[in-house]
């Protein structure tokens, strides 16, 4: 048989090990911790039941049909918190939104499951969402700068921010 040098064996081993590293679920902040940190007191957990009209409006905001008839949220006074999910490329990104007086106070990426685009969790990106409001036609009042290599995740989070601001308006007349 032909000889098999030890060095080449090690190179193969390194190659195989590199491939064993795969995408997994990264929890940056537990959803219940996000809710705890978002309010000074204990918020009330509520549900928004979606009527036909609301679902039609959600479709125009989100760009697709929303699966489900109710959405949970947490409220204390005029402040609401929403934990929403949207698929970036293939897997859902769990995101927390905190809104008060029709203005977004905070956006946090809570759980990220995609293999690429995790840069969206960093403050240089998430800080852009602070102060966001919905204008006429359910458009955001300022542009969200993208991140190269994370376009799909950026788009997903931008869509979700529009949805959360719209839902806040629905529950706080």
């Amino acid at each position, binding site marked *: 048989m*032909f*000889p098999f040098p030890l060095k080449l064996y090690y190179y*193969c081993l390194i*190659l*195989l090990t590199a*491939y*064993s590293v795969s995408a997994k679920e990264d929890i940056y902040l*537990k*959803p*219940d911790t996000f809710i705890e940190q978002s309010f000074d007191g204990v918020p009330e*957990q509520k*549900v928004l039941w979606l009527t036909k009209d609301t679902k039609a409006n959600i479709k125009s905001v989100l760009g697709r049909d929303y*699966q*489900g*008839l*109710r*959405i*949970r949220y947490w409220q204390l006074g005029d402040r609401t918190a929403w*934990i929403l999910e949207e698929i970036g490329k293939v897997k859902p990104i*769990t995101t927390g939104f905190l809104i008060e007086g029709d203005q977004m106070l905070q956006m946090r990426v*809570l*759980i990220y499951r995609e293999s690429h685009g995790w840069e969206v969790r960093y403050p240089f990106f998430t800080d852009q969402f602070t102060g966001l409001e919905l204008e006429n036609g359910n458009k955001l009042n300022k542009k969200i700068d993208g991140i190269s290599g994370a376009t799909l995740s950026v788009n997903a989070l931008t869509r979700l921010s529009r949805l959360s601001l719209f839902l806040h308006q629905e529950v706080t007349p």
Partner: protein
Amino acid sequence: MNLPRKRVILSWHRWMGFLSALFLVVLSITGLALNHTERLGLDSVQIKNSLLLSRYGMSNGTQIKTFRIHRANTVSHLGGQIFYNAHPISNGETPLGIIEGERFTVIATSTNLIYLTSQGELIETANHSQLPFKELTAVGYTPNKKPVLITDTGQWKPDRDWLNFKTYDSSYTVEPLAKTVLSESETDVLLEAFQGGGVSLYRVILDLHSGRLFGWGGRTLMDLTAIAILLLITSGIGGWLRKSRRPPTTTK
């Protein structure tokens, strides 16, 4: 360079050539086909071979687990998806309990609670971030027939809206969920909904080209073939250069 080392390189060159030849043929043929996808119409050919579909996680009818819901309807679990009749409603594990309440029906799996209307329309899917537990092991009932969730964090009793849960320490009984069997035509409809049109020939050839069709092992084999080809080129050119630099033998 001494003779034994030269022989070792030659032996390596020969064996690598033999071993990588088969993979190189596959790479070349699939590469040629992929280069002419539109002309060959690879995208329009759908494959429904059960062995091949199973490689793509599209399981066949033998793995369907079905339970009765709302009297005449069914809830089925197949390939990580839950179907109401043949309509996909959510991703999830095999149902552990189906609780038909006054306001809505809840399908309980080990990780999710799926809320449905009496017509089978999805209301909400609640996961561990909205529930007081991570894993549900069974669904029980109190003596007055109220549901109890038996979980990794204890027993929980839901409120009317299944939004808030209270701990429950009294007695309960667990009734295993009775399975039912779909008819052949119902199975076909469910499989059609699950598998869609099948897998395109383009997808299969692309995955054969990259080795992904055989999972992690196939992809690694294709990588090793690519590395082997690079080594063959290097050792081949090296050998040729050595020969070309050798002084010509003169005959006396």
